[in-house]
Every structure is written in structure tokens, then in C-alpha cells.
């Protein structure tokens, strides 16, 4: 197998993230804290064959997000994203 294709995309994290967030964050936009590239989380590179999920920027490979699951706990590190932009229902 060509090792350069050992990743999937953010769609594969949707189930795990849906357990934590009340909304589907794979449709959210995020900005890489490393290089500033913006992307929808569904489109980021996702490594799943690891002790946790690791999402990386397609441009610079910096880690955007890490998710570790333990018994009764989850650790979510989002420091690789400057912020998330989520579509919200317009209540006005």
C-alpha cells in the first residue's frame, strides 16, 4: 500500500465528534493555527490508525485536532485550530 495515502478525511471523524458536540462539526470551517489555511473539517487529513484521532492541515501538515478516548472520558485538543466557524440557525 502506498504509505502516502495512510490518511482519510474528516468525514471519518464525524461519528466520534458527534458524540461530543451537539452538532456535526465536520461541516464547520476551521483555520490552521500554523499556516492560516482555512478548510471545512470534513476535508482535513485524518489519521485514524493511532492511539487517538489526529487531524492535520492539508497544506502544512500541522496538527489541527487530537481526540483520545479513554474509559468514561475523552480528551479533545483543538489548539491547532484558531477557531471553528459553525453555521447556526438564524434566530433573529
Amino acid at each position: 500500500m502506498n504509505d502516502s495515502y495512510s490518511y482519510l478525511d474528516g468525514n471519518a471523524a464525524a461519528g466520534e465528534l458527534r458524540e461530543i458536540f451537539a452538532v456535526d462539526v465536520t461541516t464547520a470551517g476551521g483555520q490552521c493555527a500554523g499556516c492560516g489555511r482555512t478548510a471545512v473539517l470534513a476535508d482535513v487529513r485524518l489519521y485514524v490508525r493511532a492511539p487517538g484521532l489526529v487531524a492535520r492541515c492539508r497544506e502544512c501538515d500541522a496538527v489541527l485536532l487530537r481526540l483520545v478516548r479513554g474509559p468514561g472520558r475523552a480528551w479533545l485538543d483543538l489548539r491547532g485550530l484558531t477557531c471553528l466557524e459553525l453555521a447556526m440557525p438564524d434566530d433573529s
Partner: protein
Amino acid sequence: MSWRVATVVALRDQSPTARSIYLDVPGWPGHAAGQHVDVRLTAPDGYTAVRSYSIASAVDGDGVELTVEQLADGEVSPYLGSELVVGDLLEIRGPIGGWFVWRPDQREPIQLIAGGSGVVPLLAIARSHSAAGNQSPIRLLYSVREPTSVIHSAELEELARRDDGLILTYAFTRSAPPGWNRPPGRVDAALLADSTWPTELSPTCYVCGPTGFVETVADLLVGAGHDPARVRTERFGPTGGIR
């Protein structure tokens, strides 16, 4: 979003290595075409394995159809592909994924490009498009290794027979049927130019398959002039994230 217990109500072989699993999921909230579910298996000692599978069916009450390709060194797919019988229970979570979806209120032309088992969510899109009576032009380019690798041929050809229905093109990478109009080979710019909507139509493209396939095809689409914002991708691969 919690786990639901689904009952296997039917099984159908799609190819020597793939079969469709028809589930009854009481209380299923419905799904959008392109979404997937997570399936969880639990062994007697409590060991669990979770994998993602795309939904093959259009919304149909409590019914959900999955198609599973058996991987030789897989842990879950051999169970789903060979061991599972009608009456068995499966835990599923979903529907999941809001980005790689097609909704009936979309009006633009649709280009579907499938690599191998990546055809499953695209079949759901084609079925949903037809069920909704959506009039936007829709095409599927379906790339497989060889003719026996094709899955859901009956459903795809039925959709293609309908007036203004799906325009279906097969592409073979390893061996083609005798007399095929193109020698076996990977999807390339020439094939896309021949068999997909031109950029002038501003189609939304949905590309699904193994990561290598998706990267190649997405690059070709953008290289041909498609707006990257109109190219949706879903990469398939072992989702056996280790717990």
C-alpha cells in the same frame, strides 16, 4: 447521538466479495443521501470494534441498506460479509456526516465519481435524486478493477434506464469486457473530459473511493477547471481507529 439496535432483515450478494445488508432500525430519523453510519460489534469478552459504512439506500422509513466490501485482512468486514445472518442484531449510530451529502433542494447538475466501494454513497445520491423527481442532470463515472467488481449493477442500470435518468459510465482499471471502448487504465484527464459534465455546467462533483483515487480525481477535476468549492470528497479506508 446514541447507538440503536438494528435487525438484519435481508442479505444480498453484490459481488464475490461484497454484499448488501438490509436493516430495520426502529425509530430511524431518516438520513440525507451520502451520509454514513458507524457499526459496532461486541465480542463476548467485551472487546468492541467500530467501523463506518455508507448508507446505500434513499430514505425509506425504518429501512437502512449498507453494502460491505470484505477486506482480506479485515476484522469487521469478514463478519459482516460472511458470518452475519438474517435475524442478527447490529448496533448502529447515525446518520453521520453533513458535508458529503446531496439534498433534493439542490438544482445544479451532479457529477458522481466512484472508485470501487466508493459507489455506495453515490448510489444513495442517485436513488434519492430519482425518488425526489429532481430534474437536474446527473452522471456517474464508476471506476472498478474488472467487470466482476461492479456492485449494485442492477440498481444502477435501472436508474440509467429511466427517462432523463442517471447517465452511467463504467471505467475499468485492470481488465475490461471484450470489445470495450477504452483499454483498462486508471481514471485520467481524457476519461474525465469524455465522461463527465464539463466545467461550464458548474456541476457539484462528489468523489468517493480509496484515498489515492480521491486525491487523483479531485486534482484532475480542479485541474480541468472545476471550482474546488464544488468538489466534495469522501475517502474510504480502514476506519478501524484503535480504541
